[in-house]
């Protein structure tokens, strides 16, 4: 009777001390979080651990990142298995700046400046559309057109006769 109690006590102590050697779920979670933060490959990482099973989530930039994160987590002491719920981030879409069209009053003034040295050219502006009439030499056209299009009109309606 006494012996069995002693044995029982030893068994309990052994069990308790044995389990206490293994990190608990909270400790595992902290270790995983620290690991994922240090790799900096994953963003918005989430970690849950239950009975040594780690569930990780977050945004990975590519497949490789997702695989590496899983391997890193699996290598942490106490992790039995890993459920990898990480997403692969969509490639960032670069938004194009909207097309800017110069207001008519400013455009008229700028067009007057640009066409000053082309007396045979008449330019009119309406709703951002620049209409050119008259005549011009090819050389002149090659100088005038870049100057006019740089003024950001909506459109250049070129009705010039090229001589």
């Amino acid at each position, binding site marked *: 009777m006494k012996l069995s109690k002693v044995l029982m006590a030893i068994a309990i102590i052994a069990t308790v001390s044995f389990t206490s050697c293994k990190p608990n779920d909270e400790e595992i979670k902290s270790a995983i979080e620290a690991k994922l933060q240090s790799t900096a490959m994953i963003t918005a990482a989430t970690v849950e651990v239950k009975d040594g099973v780690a569930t990780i989530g977050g945004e990975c930039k590519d497949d490789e990142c997702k695989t590496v994160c899983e391997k890193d987590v699996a290598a942490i002491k106490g992790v039995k298995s890993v459920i990898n719920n990480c997403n692969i981030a969509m490639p960032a879409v670069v938004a*194009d700046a909207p097309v800017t069209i110069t207001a008519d009053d400013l455009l008229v*003034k700028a067009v007057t400046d640009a066409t000053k040295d082309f007396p045979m050219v008449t330019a009119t502006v309406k709703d951002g559309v620049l209409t050119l009439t008259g005549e011009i030499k090819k050389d002149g056209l090659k*100088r005038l057109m*870049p100057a006019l*299009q740089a003024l950001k009109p909506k*459109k*250049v309606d*070129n*009705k010039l006769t090229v001589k």
Partner: protein
Amino acid sequence: MALQNKYKELTDAATALGVSNLQVREQDAVLYIDGTAPNGSVKDQLWGIYDKIDPNFIAGDLILNVSVDVAATVTKVKVTTESSNLNIRKGPGTDQPIVGKAAHGEVITLVSQSSEQWWLVRTDDGEEGYAYAQYLTPVV
């Protein structure tokens, strides 16, 4: 997309020639290409391609706005009019009074680029005012 295909040679060249801040957008049947060319030669090449795809620029379906990157270190510009003198004006606009003239081929001081079209300049005679930037070429 049709316009982007039509002018693909142009946008490809812009990328290859190192045009920065390149933007290509299509809106209301007009393609808008904006960017900054590293030098005047690149801009000329792009306009050459434009003229090849749409001879004499009559289609009215492209606005090519390529400016030339002028380094902040540039302080001298050459007057590159066809042959005439360049007017220097009190303010930025052809409606402004003429305060001086710079000769064709003369190298003058660039004070500041007050806008893309008008630059503030100073001649060796001390005349200061605005000149049309198209007729000024940076001296590197």
